[in-house]
């Protein structure tokens, strides 16, 4: 079956990003397809590259990154959520004249159209927040 996953919450603040990650891994393990990961609202922090986890805790951002790359997933952060929260791609940062960037290269910035498109092209959309 074709799934899309929407993540509304930042890692660590609530459990839901971790649940979403676990669920996504299981989906793939069970042979299902993920059409898109969509990070909305505080969920965009899951795609941040400027994070450091303590040695004895998991880095959710790194785990997402690996999952996306290994399985070649389409991963989108909502543009209006991301820019407001400082999750910027290199391209976007340059356009705005900012010196740093903070979006992992496994995700791309796009609009809410991609959110609606995910519903239209998936058998199931599962939301975590």
């Amino acid at each position, binding site marked *: 079956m074709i799934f899309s996953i929407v993540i509304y919450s930042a890692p660590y603040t609530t459990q839901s990003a971790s649940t979403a990650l676990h669920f996504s891994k299981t989906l793939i393990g069970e042979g299902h397809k993920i059409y898109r990961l969509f990070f909305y609202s505080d969920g965009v922090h899951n795609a941040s590259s400027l994070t450091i986890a303590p040695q004895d805790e998991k880095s959710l951002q790194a785990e997402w990154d690996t999952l996306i790359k290994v399985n070649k997933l389409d991963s989108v952060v909502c543009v209006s959520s991301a820019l407001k929260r400082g999750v910027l791609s290199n391209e976007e940062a340059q356009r705005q004249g900012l010196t740093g960037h903070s979006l992992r290269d496994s995700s791309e910035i796009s*609009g809410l159209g991609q959110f609606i498109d995910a519903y239209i092209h998936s058998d199931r959309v599962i939301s975590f927040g």
Partner: protein
Amino acid sequence: MDSLRFDTEGYLKDLDAWNENVALEIAKQENIQLTPAHWEIIKLTRSFYARHQLSPATRALVSLIKRELGPKKGRSVYLMKLFSGTPAKIVSKVSGLPKPDNCI
């Protein structure tokens, strides 16, 4: 274009700085010669923003024009003829409003 006043896409940074001369300036950048037909739309768009705090998507703009100016003008082709291919973006830009949120 002056990067202090406009962002990289040509949208006005300080929305309060808008006036008719600024609109003429932005329109020139977009290769649009503003006519009374354009001003009519700009006025409506700005009143929409003042009321709803949203930069209208094309669909909303078309319904608004239809309601206020009649069905002959209330069509997306009419808007496209005046403001080129992606009218919602251009109209918002010329009208001194933020870029519409739902652009894809």
